[in-house]
């Protein structure tokens, strides 16, 4: 009934790349939180979040990105966000999160 969210993870050596596929909403956001926080806790690497197949995100999801960034920074690491669709990039700009994260094309 709710949108699906699939998360894949790839270890690139000096960073971990996470691929988000589907929708991050109030229903699927806990899955995202568990995954991102888990990766940050278990790895001393930068985190790359690939949003090529992310079709929707709400403020719950954006809040999880912010929480994950705080956690990563505490470990001296960073989060890179790439391949945002225009509708999602717009939300990053509205909320000012485009200035907080390193956003790559």
């Amino acid at each position: 009934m709710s949108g699906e969210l699939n998360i894949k993870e790839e270890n690139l050596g000096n960073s971990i790349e996470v691929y988000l596929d589907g929708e991050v909403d109030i229903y699927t956001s806990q899955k995202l939180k568990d995954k991102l926080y888990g990766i940050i806790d278990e790895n001393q690497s930068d985190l790359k979040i690939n949003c090529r197949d992310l079709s929707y995100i709400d403020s719950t999801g954006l809040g999880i990105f912010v929480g994950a960034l705080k956690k990563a920074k505490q470990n001296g690491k960073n989060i890179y966000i790439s391949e945002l669709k225009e509708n999602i990039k717009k939300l990053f700009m509205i909320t000012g999160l485009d200035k907080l994260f390193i956003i790559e094309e």
Partner: protein
Amino acid sequence: MSVDIIELLLPFKAEYVSIARLTVSGIASRVGFDIDTVEDIKVAVAEVCNRIVNIGSKLSQHYKINFAISERSLKVLFTCEDKSIKCIFNNEDAELAVSIIRALMDDVEFCTDGNYILSMTKSVGENK
């Protein structure tokens, strides 16, 4: 000018917020908004639903979304029998949602004196 009304009654459950998203997408398309604006309205409506669901209610099983469709605009009203649900965006943790809703809709009434939780309007051709 005639106004058509569609009402959606939803349980306070996260898994049903997607139903509100799908419903408002269909309605906004019917009004004649372009695809980007339909997406904006969908996002704004979902932000309000998220907040209502997060706050929840001990007195009511459902909240209601009222879509008022006119020729050139869509007004969305959120109501609940539980009148304690009112100023739902006052906390600091709602900051992201508030900025999204304000940016995407033309007119938003938070914390109103009226008999509803929140009202938001979007008119065709007034894209921000």
